[in-house]
């Protein structure tokens, strides 16, 4: 019997551009800036990189068919193995899952992970790109929009657990305030629950301040095998668990109140990382929060609390940066912005910086050792999870 030699995978560098509504840089130029920063911070040059994996959501944002092929060299893949993974909103964190297997397979010693999105190219509004994510026969004829389906999910979640909008709004308040400390943030702000409740109704129960903005931006990470990482740094951060899961396309046949797919993805990652009691063992988490209710939904899916319990923890301050279980200390998508493929990578960058004690003003207290990042995508259907440890 031949033996498999699974390699331990480390994160050794991270890079990030500003997240803004419109950037002058092309997608290529943004990829380069993030990748270059990640390489520099790892103390590596391009020639040290064996492979590149790139994450980006639909081509209909950037407005380039086969978008990945346009970004190869800008992501550092000149004459290198390059691949693009694609799981809708789940893409960002999933790109890191992809980076993980590139190295864990033993095929490569170093891998650049680049996430990029230039949503502003889609005119007059990036929301247009979302009108073609639906089944053409069942859903598109109604003029279905992204906010429709998420408001349906939010409402179902509220209904099943008897959750009030005030409880959910707290997430937006927290994340936008956290983002004031993030140098790349697009929408850091001091707002109140009333501000959220009084903001324009988009699709009840979703209001303007429940939603993250559309953004341009890029983020990158450098991953390395154990041997390489130990030569580079005394304090690598390890990827101890990777997980992903997709649920059925037939979203109107599922009960939307709970994200099973996130739980399955989390269980996969926790099993790999040998985590048995997530709330106890995880010190900091960056669940996906394109809408405020999604942070709560995902905390439950990540098994950080019981079903329906996340609003209570939020109200008690547990999820604040100085709480027992800091959630989205970066400011999340609600505060930092949501260039989709890049947003998930940004979350991984945040966990990396938090575990290294390098998050500056955003640093959560208590010397965190284990962190989780998670993203979500498709038709309320995809979960991607990564577990990092110092």
């Amino acid at each position, binding site marked *: 019997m031949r033996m498999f030699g699974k390699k331990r995978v480390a994160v050794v560098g*991270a890079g*990030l*551009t*500003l*997240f*803004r*509504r*419109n*950037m*002058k*840089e092309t997608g290529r130029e*943004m990829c380069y*800036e993030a990748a270059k920063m990640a390489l520099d*911070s790892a103390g590596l040059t391009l020639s040290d990189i064996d492979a590149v994996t790139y994450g980006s959501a639909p081509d209909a944002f950037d*407005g380039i*068919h086969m978008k990945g092929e346009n970004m190869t060299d800008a992501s550092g893949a000149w004459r290198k193995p390059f691949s693009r993974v694609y799981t809708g909103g789940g893409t960002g964190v999933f790109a890191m899952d992809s980076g993980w297997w590139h190295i864990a397979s033993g095929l490569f010693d170093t891998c650049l992970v680049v996430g990029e999105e230039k949503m*502003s190219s889609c*005119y007059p*509004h990036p*929301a*247009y790109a*979302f*009108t073609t994510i639906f089944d*053409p*026969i*069942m*859903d598109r*004829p*109604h003029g*279905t*929009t992204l*906010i*429709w*389906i998420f*408001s*349906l*999910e939010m*409402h*179902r979640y509220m209904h099943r657990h008897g959750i009030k909008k005030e409880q959910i709004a707290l997430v937006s308040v927290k994340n936008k305030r956290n983002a004031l400390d993030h*140098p*790349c943030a697009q929408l850091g702000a001091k707002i109140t629950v009333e501000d959220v409740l009084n903001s*324009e109704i*988009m*699709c*009840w129960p979703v209001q303007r301040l429940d939603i993250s903005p559309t953004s341009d*931006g890029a983020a990158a990470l450098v991953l390395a095998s154990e041997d390489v990482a130990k030569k580079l740094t005394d304090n690598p951060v390890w990827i101890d668990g990777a997980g992903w899961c997709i649920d*059925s396309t*037939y979203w*109107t*046949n*599922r*009960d*939307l109140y709970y994200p099973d797919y996130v739980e399955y993805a989390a269980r996969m990652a926790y099993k790999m990382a040998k985590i048995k009691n997530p709330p106890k063992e995880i010190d900091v988490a960056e669940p996906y929060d394109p809408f405020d209710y999604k942070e709560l939904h995902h905390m439950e899916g990540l098994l950080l609390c019981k079903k329906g319990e996340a609003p209570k923890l939020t109200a008690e301050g547990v999820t604040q940066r100085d709480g027992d279980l800091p959630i989205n200390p970066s400011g999340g998508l609600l505060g930092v912005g949501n260039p989709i493929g890049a947003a998930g990578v940004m979350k991984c*960058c945040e966990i990396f*910086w938090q575990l*290294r004690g*390098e*998050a*500056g*003003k955003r640093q959560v207290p208590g010397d965190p050792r284990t962190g989780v990042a998670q993203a979500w995508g498709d038709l309320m259907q995809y979960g991607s999870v990564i577990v990092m440890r110092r």
Partner: protein
Amino acid sequence: MSAKIKEYPGTEVKSEEIKQGKVPTIRDRPKAKYLWSAGVAMSRFLNELKKGKIIASTCNKCGRIMVPPRVFCEQCFKSTDGWTYVKDTGTINTYSVSFIAGDASRIKEPIVVAVIDIDGASPGMGILHTMQEVDWKKVKFGMKVKAVWKPEKERTGAITDIKYFKPL
């Protein structure tokens, strides 16, 4: 590192600068047209809608009655076994009220959007549709609703052959 980095790259431009042409840009609109085959399951479904009926497919193994129909049972991973008509009434599983259109612009009259679990199909088998003939503030979870069909002559074999659902 985050704490050590002084400047993050990126050049912000304002939407107005783009609109006013102060930032040079190139415009394009792809010509990307498709004609999909609806396939075995959805061709039948559409042809039945034209007749004013909703058809489901069934799996003998798990016993599920599935709407929209499909030729495979995704739970059992096998071919589905037959067809059966379901009712054009149902229950509101979840709903929302939209004040904006696809391009994010505001619309005058809000649209009530709902996932409606169809009577006669397995529990939780819903479809997406809209509601009318009801004040949006009075829509409730669990409300019983019924399809309002277009007149037979106007039907084309589309999900919009059902104009909307109304309270029963």
